[in-house]
């Protein structure tokens, strides 16, 4: 683990929170550099069951400007935490998604595989507790529920 300074020339962060479908072809994203020997990705997908209920779809709500800033902060922190260079792409959907649709994509490039795995894991775990994004589940029995989450308040 490194606590050094980011090498600006070897860092690229690309974040977007929007209604746009997540294109799997983003694997061709140009965040790659010759110094990067490892890539890792994470896809979050809407699943069909949660807390014992059959899920039909999930509606994502987001405070977009703060969510995108938070995700950029997380990406930069992660690059610093596990090295000094890397590329991070994050896409997060808003709006209504059916079971099987991709809600979030994280793609990282780093010099070595250890930091690629660690950085990808760091970004998704921090996203889940820090990004101002919410989800409302729609169930097959007609019920709906805003899911409980992690408080952001600062005292």
């Amino acid at each position: 683990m490194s606590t050094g300074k980011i090498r600006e020339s070897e860092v690229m962060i690309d974040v977007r929170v929007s209604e746009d479908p997540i294109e799997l072809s983003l694997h061709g994203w140009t965040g790659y550099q010759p110094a990067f020997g490892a890539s890792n990705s994470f896809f979050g997908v809407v699943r069909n069951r949660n807390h014992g209920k059959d899920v039909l779809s999930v509606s994502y709500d987001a405070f977009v400007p703060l969510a995108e800033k938070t995700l950029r902060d997380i990406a930069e922190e992660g690059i610093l935490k596990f090295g000094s260079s890397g590329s991070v792409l994050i896409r997060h959907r808003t709006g209504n998604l059916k079971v099987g649709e991709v809600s979030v994509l994280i793609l990282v490039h780093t010099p070595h595989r250890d930091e690629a795995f660690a950085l990808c894991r760091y970004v998704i775990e921090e996203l889940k507790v820090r990004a101002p994004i919410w989800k409302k589940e729609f169930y097959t029995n007609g019920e709906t529920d805003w899911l409980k989450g992690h408080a952001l308040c600062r005292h």
Partner: protein
Amino acid sequence: MNSPGIRVRVFGVLRNYSDDSGMITLSAGRDDLKTVRDFKNAFIAHFKEHFPEYDSGEIEDCALATENEILHSNEALLVGDELAVLPPVCGG
């Protein structure tokens, strides 16, 4: 003359209590609210008056934010900032 009621953007479960544009208007004016704590007290009072069925204790877990940052509870509110109330988050 009293200042107009403050309008705030809300998200998540709080959208159940907002207007169609995702905003809630408090009776308190901006001039009455000096700090984040003042705002939260006014927000709780609004819910107790208009939506007594909502557990106002959950509002204590909500954060107040601008487009750039989460605000601390003892922080002064700046005129001109558009404010948002953020319930606990669960993205991904």
